[in-house]
């Protein structure tokens, strides 16, 4: 359709707060469609002022439902909320079931809330390569808070730490003992730890185990942050603990802005954004040029990974 993706017009409409324009812009940016670079450039200019809250944790911990509670809390304060929810793409079909939205459908018609589901599309680490582009669209739309829900994580998905300003790590009373909480990886990146499903038995023990593990010393990352990650209990089912969680989230945002850490984090985020850009352009484009002929030549030992790799990178 002519003019539908016209960059100047789209950016203008997104700045005015038009949801339909933001939705179209998200598609262009996420799909890397023609014109996406010009668009992304404009959106980047308007970025950097909203608090980006990452919601991470194992599958089924209640990340989406808790996100729904936070949306309601922020809306009661008249804040504009953007939500990005990532679910895994199939490595077999390339398809995805984006099932997070159904937990937040009660906010579907609220003009102060914009929700978009994203598929991981081949990225490992709980997010998608286009995540920054998507965030910048929502920042331009004028969102005060941006909630970014990762894929349900295991022990090793930490990308969210270099994308969000505040990482909320959501777990449940059934998460295991303090030995689990002592492991490196996902447990190191939380700025705030939440034991959700506090309506179930075992909440107090889970909170105590987490506190015990965190109390053994600062993690390598946390030592520099001068922020003691608090441990809270919430129930997305009953709403218990949600106001307290929101106030701790505000506290962390204040901490980031008052200390130099907010700026340091933003720089880290830009480094990661650059890294994703290069990964999409250089690595993916080289990999897309791997043909069956090349693989055949490797099987018959006519060539080797190093020679092929060098040729593919240099032939760009």
């Amino acid at each position, binding site marked *: *359709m002519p003019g539908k993706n016209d960059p100047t017009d789209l950016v203008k409409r997104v700045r005015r707060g038009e*949801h*339909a324009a933001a*939705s*179209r812009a*998200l*598609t262009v940016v996420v*799909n890397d*469609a023609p014109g996406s670079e010009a668009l992304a450039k404009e959106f980047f200019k308007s970025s950097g002022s909203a608090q980006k809250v990452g919601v991470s944790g194992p599958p089924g911990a209640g990340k989406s439902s808790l996100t729904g509670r936070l949306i309601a809390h922020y809306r009661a304060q008249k804040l504009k909320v953007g939500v990005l929810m990532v679910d895994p*793409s*199939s490595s*077999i*079909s*390339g*398809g*995805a*079931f*984006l*099932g997070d*939205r*159904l937990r937040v*459908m009660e906010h*579907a*018609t609220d003009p102060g809330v*914009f*929700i*978009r*589901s994203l*598929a991981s*599309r081949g990225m490992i680490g709980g997010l998608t390569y286009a995540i920054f582009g998507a965030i910048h669209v929502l920042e331009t739309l004028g969102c005060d808070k941006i909630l970014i829900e990762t894929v349900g994580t295991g022990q090793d998905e930490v990308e969210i730490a270099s994308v969000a300003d505040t990482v909320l790590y959501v777990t449940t009373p059934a998460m295991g003992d303090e030995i689990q909480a002592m492991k490196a990886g996902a447990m190191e990146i939380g700025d705030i730890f939440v034991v959700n499903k506090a309506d179930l038995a075992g909440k107090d023990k889970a909170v105590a185990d987490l506190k015990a593990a965190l109390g053994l010393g600062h993690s390598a990352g946390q030592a520099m942050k001068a922020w003691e990650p608090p441990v809270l209990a919430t129930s997305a089912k009953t709403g218990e603990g949600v106001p307290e969680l929101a106030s701790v989230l505000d506290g962390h945002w204040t901490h980031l802005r008052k200390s130099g850490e907010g700026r340091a984090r933003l720089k880290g985020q830009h480094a990661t954004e650059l890294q994703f850009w290069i990964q999409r352009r250089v690595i993916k484009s080289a990999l*897309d040029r791997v043909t069956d002929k090349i693989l055949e030549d490797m099987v018959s030992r006519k060539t080797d990974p190093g020679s092929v790799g060098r040729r593919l990178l240099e032939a760009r």
Partner: protein
Amino acid sequence: MDKPLRVLIAKPGLDGHDRGAKVIVRALRDAGFEVIYTGIRQTPEMIAAAAMQEDVDAVGLSLLSGAHLTLFPAICKELKKKGLKDVLVFGGGIIPDEDIPVLKKAGVDGVFGPGTPLQTIVDYLKGKLAVAR
């Protein structure tokens, strides 16, 4: 490489029987679509808002309660109101043959009754959406 097509599967109204919708979600996922599911008991406004924010290529409606003649046209109307004129709308459920022309006139492009092979729906979507793109 082509980007995956996006489809919203929605269950409007008071009907809570969503096994059919879930079977479709699963089949489309396995056919390479990115599928968003609204869950049950959605209003036309909620479905249209979700379709708009997700910028989907198609919206699939599932209804077994008999209210399709009221709800499906209401959803088509809401979609148009939101400026989503290009979104393909299709539906399924317990829908008598004589109702199909009425639904088509209201903007429901394809209607699939019980027993429709999943591949038929996948082929239908891929065919229609390839043209649209």
